């Protein structure tokens, strides 16, 4: 029980940290009018969506023990963004389940095992980020454009979500793996 609680707590704070950095960068962009509008807007997304990498990282490091924490932070962030009720639950599930499905595809099809990020190569992590981004962007695109109240064009949506997901997740996973190596931290799945 305590293992579950600790893993969930760690996952919660790791993803919260990713959201914090992500929001700080967006507000910095907004204040400096750097790289476009930099608005905090679900329609547009961001070119550096760090939380996607954080969710994937937590799933690899903590496994199913960290899931409650990830689910909680995802729900809290959806509340923070004041999402509509019809896309609220779906975005929450995509955030949490997307990385699980992507990593499961890699493991089941015997491409990479992803038992630990430290033992994987940079290219393997990049490949994971691309598949993660494809899954995340496509599923959010389907959910978002099935509803009638969208205010942006489908092209603008995809053109920011896809590169943002790839770059953001790659940056976060590399940064987190680097920290794990420096502080000699290991996996907590077992």
């Amino acid at each position, binding site marked *: 029980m305590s293992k579950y609680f600790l893993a969930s707590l760690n996952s919660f704070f790791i993803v919260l940290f990713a959201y914090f950095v992500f929001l700080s960068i967006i507000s910095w962009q907004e204040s400096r009018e750097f790289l476009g509008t930099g608005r905090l807007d679900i329609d547009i997304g961001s070119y550096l969506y760090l939380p996607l990498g954080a969710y994937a990282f937590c799933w690899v490091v903590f496994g199913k023990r960290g899931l409650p924490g990830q689910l909680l932070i995802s729900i809290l962030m959806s509340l923070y963004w004041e999402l509509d009720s019809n896309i609220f639950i779906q975005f929450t599930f995509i955030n949490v389940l997307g990385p699980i499905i992507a990593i499961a*595809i890699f493991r089941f099809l015997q491409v990479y095992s992803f038992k630990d990020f430290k033992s994987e190569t940079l290219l393997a992590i990049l490949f994971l980020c691309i*598949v993660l981004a494809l899954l995340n962007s496509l599923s959010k695109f389907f959910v978002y454009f099935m509803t009638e109240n969208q205010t942006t064009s489908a092209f603008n949506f995809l053109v920011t979500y896809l590169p943002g997901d790839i770059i953001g997740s790659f940056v976060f996973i590399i940064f987190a793996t680097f920290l794990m190596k420096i502080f000699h931290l290991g996996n907590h799945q077992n």
Partner: protein
Amino acid sequence: MNILKNNLNAFLLVFVSILVSVFFGTLIENFKSLIFLAFGAKILALLIWGVYVIPGIFLAKVMQYLFFTNFDPNLEMVISLAAIATLTPVLMMVMMRISNAGNLFILDNINFRHIIFFIIITAMLSALLKYMYMLSDIEFAHTAAVVMMEALFGQLFGGLIFVYVASKYAQPIYLIIRKLKFV
């Protein structure tokens, strides 16, 4: 001469499967059916004959976009879409090769699960790139997600079914045809 023959084979394989897909497909607002076999044919041609058959596949895709589309095609769009459809699998093959995820350039000792992985990611990337290109040009409005979902699942199911059936039954069918002395 051998490359020319392979290109012709690839062209015929892809084009016939396009005809089959169109004949049996449900042409809903677009050029795709929900089991788009041509995607699997393209993958199989690349796996069997290698990247040298790109011109043959490209030509078949150009024919598809010229004659089997419901939107009004212009030459630039046809060539761009055909190029995306042809080069996406090659890009993924190269990417899998350099990231040690599996060498699909050599068919010996290949893991069939890697081929399934290759089909999944290629279908996703291909659907995304094609529709990003088309969305920049054509206004789909509310149906964009529906159209893209059809394309994605059509390619995914078509690819998996075609490659599975071909790998399982191609050899027995070839042997029967040889026994009947057609070849």
